[in-house]
């Protein structure tokens, strides 16, 4: 009995425990559920410590090293490593009700920083590029491409109209919004149908694991 076999057997039993949930909630599922919540919470705690806190704070501040390079105590790099450490520590202020509000300083930087970061790339990739992709020539209606382009433009305009919030969906606007919802529903149906495959793939993968890797019967 080697470690690989023990590991595979453990994994297989846990796999079956999870599948038992399809029948109904039961002690085996509860065991697997609590185990994986604990294990994964521990996993992320450790991984984030070693991937971020250690290299950006602990190593430079206490061991005076960034990557392989030595830094000076009290030098610019040292102070720059201390700041995220202090920001991280003030997050813990929330455990002390009297100074709990200090943790908002760190949250402010976090929330603000990420908010700002998104604006321009979103404008580029989600708005401008999509406008470019959406502005298509709609001549040549005697060909398939002409009609396709017309549908693409109309569908896009309809979908945009559906998301108009500050006007009542009546008249032309209502008509366009209606076209929009038709396109949206067809799109959602397509996504649903398209997804079935990847979900079944996962099931095939698990069955492969049970039958091939564990039981070795196929």
């Amino acid at each position: 009995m080697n470690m690989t076999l023990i590991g595979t057997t453990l994994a297989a039993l846990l796999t079956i425990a999870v599948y038992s949930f399809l029948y109904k909630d039961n002690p085996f599922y509860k065991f697997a559920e609590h185990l994986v919540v604990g294990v994964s919470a521990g996993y992320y705690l450790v991984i984030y410590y070693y991937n971020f806190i250690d290299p950006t704070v602990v190593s430079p501040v206490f061991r005076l090293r960034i990557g392989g390079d030595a830094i000076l105590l009290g030098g610019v790099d040292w102070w720059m490593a201390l700041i995220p450490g202090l920001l991280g520590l003030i997050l813990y202020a929330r455990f002390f009700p009297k100074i709990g509000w200090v943790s908002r300083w760190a949250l402010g930087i976090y929330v603000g920083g990420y908010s700002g970061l998104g604006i321009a790339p979103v404008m580029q990739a989600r708005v401008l590029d999509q406008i470019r992709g959406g502005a298509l020539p709609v001549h040549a209606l005697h060909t398939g491409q002409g009609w396709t382009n017309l549908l693409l433009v109309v569908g896009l305009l309809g979908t945009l109209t559906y998301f108009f919030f500050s006007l009542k969906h009546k008249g032309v606007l209502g008509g366009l919004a209606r076209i929009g919802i038709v396109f949206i529903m067809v799109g959602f149906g397509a996504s649903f149908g398209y997804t079935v495959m990847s979900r079944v793939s996962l099931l095939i993968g698990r069955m492969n694991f049970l039958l091939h890797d564990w039981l070795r019967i196929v």
Partner: protein
Amino acid sequence: MRGATGFSRRTRPVGGPTIVTATLAALLLFPAALPAQEPEAPAPVAAIAPPAGVLAVDSPDDRGGSVDVSWDLSPDDAEGRVLCYRIYRSAHPDTGFAPVGLVAPGVSRFRDSAAPDGTPLHYRVAVSDGEREVFSASFGPVEALPQWFHRGRITVLIASLGFVVAIVYFVRAAKAGKDLFIRRLAGLDHMDDAVGRATEMGKPILFISGLSTISDVATIAAVNILGEVAKKTAEYNTRLIVPCADPIVMAVEQEVVKEAYAKVGRVDAYNEDDVFYLTRSQFAYVAGVSGIMVRQRPATILYMGMFYAESLVLAETGASVGSIQIAGTDAVTQLPFFITSCDYTLIGEELYAASAYLSREPVLLGGLKGQDMTKAAIGLAIVLGAISATLAALGVIPWDFVARVLVNA
């Protein structure tokens, strides 16, 4: 679009006149291309012709340290005699050249991304047939410099500023007391009923704010909605359970719920253990939440924020325990599943409109108006773009013009 920031990947075909020019240039420049201290390049009789027209410019829109070098292909390239081009750099026009890069035949450009900033640099391109290298004339001086503004992004800047102006203008107008209409959002009209139902049944409400971090704007939208929901559960004295997948989201949501309970004067009813962190791991989180669903049997489940593949596992488990489910997400891939498994679904942008809708705060409604106006402008841009593309296709206006407008727009 492509090529706006970098080089085109296409290489120039070598036409007749180019060959003549290149050969002439090569003949004329040949001696200069052979510095004495480059012993590996003796002057051969039947040598391959060196590349001509070497041009080096500071790479545009970058953080410095980079020079773009381009040249005309060696006339012998088309005949397959070229093995590679090697690019040389020096601080002097005719001595001290060192190789900085190598490209395949047929390629006529190279980005030297190790160029020192602010020094005059000279470039040469050598062509190699495997046995010897033949040098072009040197080009220079050129300086690699960092830029303070990314010109390729000017459209994004203008569009973003326009958007900021639109939002700020309508927010101010709303503050000034302009009355603003907002259309019905089906799912949210039932929020009161959903909370009321939970109260009647004496069962909790489960609020799931997605799996993303607070860096995802969708999560912030979810947090805003949670604030409004918490006010209602505090009023009705209904238990609100909020399992979180991200620790910062948890910290923020604890604040939000506590504050909402305080606002309606029920701070005593707030239980910090009901807003808790489970795990960041996607399906471990799902395992935990599914367990909560089948054991607590919540009357109502709200899914708001960013969701990934877990959406359907959660929503189907929720449906199987008979909960009323309202979802809202901007995750286009997950919307189909919420739509099939939930009672009401907020689609895409509706999620962002939700906090304005629920709170009816004029400033938020003003922001929404600003979004709508931008959307109208985008619709107009698409229509105009389609019309000009059509006119170009019909030959009324030149394609060049349309292409330029679309690329720069």
